[in-house]
């Protein structure tokens, strides 16, 4: 790859959008990390910080009526797909005006109007769903595509393999993204799938499989673009593995003693996606430092506002306990 390969296709506005997406995710997650420590955030929270380039790189190619299916680590995908971060923050705080009216929480953030089929509490839950979206697009003759995200640990779940094969047999416009951050909870990919390139499994399903650096927005953008174009043109499914790191624990509260000392610090220093992006676009003269700084500032204020309002927002009222499901008795 040349210095800013992939960037050629992108207008300045698109570059700024991508940066804003990544920055929004980063601030959203870092702020949740802080807030979680205060004890005010209920339940399990899995943070996406460090992996932003993947969500931003894929979603830059998707339209609102394209669909994604996410994982337990879903905030980044949701934000990049266009879910309202404020409504998401409300949701994570369990409030009535949350994106799912407080019924879903962090692990079930969804917005079907934005093509976001949901974070998912079940590892491997998403890939079958995108096969369905692919089938729907094919049957109705639209050129929508569907993208599922799965972790390196999730890649060993039977549902994922079945979906790869079904998408292949049915020639569906589906892209299966593997976010390989090296760990499933405390268990290393070196053990759980012997450290292989997971994308090489694509071969067993007659589809292209590529490995990209998940810290590098432009690498992701390029690989995603190729796969999504192919899918839209009827060329069938693909698998893309993004090698990446997560900055925080598996979930908030994880002491992470299974990781090497300084593991994260080093990645943050060498490979941070925001830093890499910034360096690339400014040194190529595509964007000015000050423009990015301004985004940083705006995002910071916005996330502040999200948290402030979320904390103050009202809880769901009791009658909602039994709405949105028919009551058999």
């Amino acid at each position, binding site marked *: 790859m040349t210095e800013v390969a992939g960037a050629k296709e992108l207008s300045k506005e698109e570059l700024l959008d991508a940066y804003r997406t990544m920055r929004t995710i980063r601030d959203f997650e870092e702020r949740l990390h802080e807030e979680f420590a205060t004890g005010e955030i209920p339940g399990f929270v899995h943070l996406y910080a460090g992996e932003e380039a993947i969500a931003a790189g894929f979603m830059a190619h998707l339209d609102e009526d394209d669909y994604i299916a996410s994982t337990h680590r879903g905030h980044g995908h949701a934000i990049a797909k266009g879910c309202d971060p404020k409504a998401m923050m409300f949701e994570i705080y369990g409030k009535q005006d949350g994106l799912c009216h407080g019924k879903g929480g962090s692990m079930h953030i*969804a917005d079907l109007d934005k093509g976001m089929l949901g974070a998912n509490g079940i590892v491997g839950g998403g890939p079958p769903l995108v096969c*369905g979206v692919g*089938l729907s697009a094919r049957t109705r003759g639209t050129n929508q595509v569907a993208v599922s995200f799965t972790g390196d640990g999730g890649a060993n779940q039977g549902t994922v393999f079945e979906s790869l094969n079904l998408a292949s047999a049915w020639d569906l416009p589906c892209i299966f993204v593997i976010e390989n951050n090296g760990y499933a909870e405390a268990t290393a990919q070196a053990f759980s799938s012997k450290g292989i390139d997971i994308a090489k499994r694509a071969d067993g399903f007659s589809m292209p499989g590529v490995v990209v650096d998940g810290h590098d927005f432009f690498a992701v953008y390029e690989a995603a673009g190729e796969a999504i174009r192919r899918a839209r043109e009827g060329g069938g499914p693909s698998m893309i593995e993004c090698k990446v790191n997560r900055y925080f624990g598996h979930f908030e509260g994880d002491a992470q003693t299974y990781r090497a000392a300084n593991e994260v610090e080093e990645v943050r220093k060498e490979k941070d996606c925001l830093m890499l992006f910034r360096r690339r676009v400014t040194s190529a003269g595509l964007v000015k430092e000050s423009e990015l700084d301004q985004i940083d500032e705006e995002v910071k204020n916005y996330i502040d506002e999200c948290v402030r309002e979320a904390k103050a927002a009202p809880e769901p009222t009791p009658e909602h306990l039994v709405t949105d*499901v028919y009551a*058999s008795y």
Partner: protein
Amino acid sequence: MARITYMQAINDALAQEMERDETVVVFGEDNVGGTGSPGEMDAWGGVMGVTKGLYGKFPNQIFDTPISESAFIGAAAGAACSGLRPVAELMFVDFMGVCFDQIFNQAAKFKYMFGGKAKTPMVIRTMYGAGIRAASQHSQALYPLFTHIPGLKVVVPSTPYDAKGLMIASIRDDDPVIFFENKVLYAVEGEVPDEAYAIPLGEAEIVREGDDVTIVAIGRMVSMAEQAAADLSSDGIEVEIVDPRTLSPLDTDTIYESVENTGRLVVVDEANPRCSMASDIASLVAQNCFEHLKAAPQMVTAPHAPPPFSPSLEDLYVPDPEKVADAVRKTVGQGVAS
């Protein structure tokens, strides 16, 4: 109106709905039968032939799948969220164990978890029940497991007429529906209107009127109850038979009304007894009709054992008219016939 089989009634319902709405798609293992093969397409039309002939009429709306129930049942859920009304087949309900997550944690919960924002109009057609010597892994009833789950609708038709009307209603419903087809009933014939009609989910039917004992019977068990009723009638016992038709939602009103009149209840359920429909209905009646009950409610179910293979054992496994009649006699205090 014509006399057709339960199987044909389901086929007709699928055809009419596919015709009416091209977002209705049908898929499953060998639902066409022959995909990729050198011989003819539509070679099977489903393992029992329920979807036979649909491929000729709707080649773009019916397809075969690899053997990957999680993927294609999940695909039904994903498709339902994005513009289709899929009818996916889980060939035997016994296979639920390889794909239950996509049913109960995904499809069933989307609407609730997403705060009402999802609509998941899908039908899972599945075959249940003993009687064809298919042994432990191909003969279970299992509808209690689905009935337990909020967000799923559960339909168990007992006649060709109901099969057609309930299938049409299920396809038009916006929640995920599990549609239980009894494999022994496939060959049973009955009068069925030619045109499309929907039987609302959640409405029981009174199959026979009587004042002495209420029998609630499910699916194939309705005919066992009917046979028992004839017998009992000659002894002067008139039973009322209620067929719930949908187990979730359950038409408790009709059941309660009947028991309020008869004061006696027998539930006939082909499933295993623990945490079953029989126990569900018996407990509801005990709670809600207590003051009307003249005798202890009775359950007639399979034993707490897997379905056996041997014909001589399988015939003992399924509730039969004699056991139903015994239970009825027990509630009216005439003791068990010896």
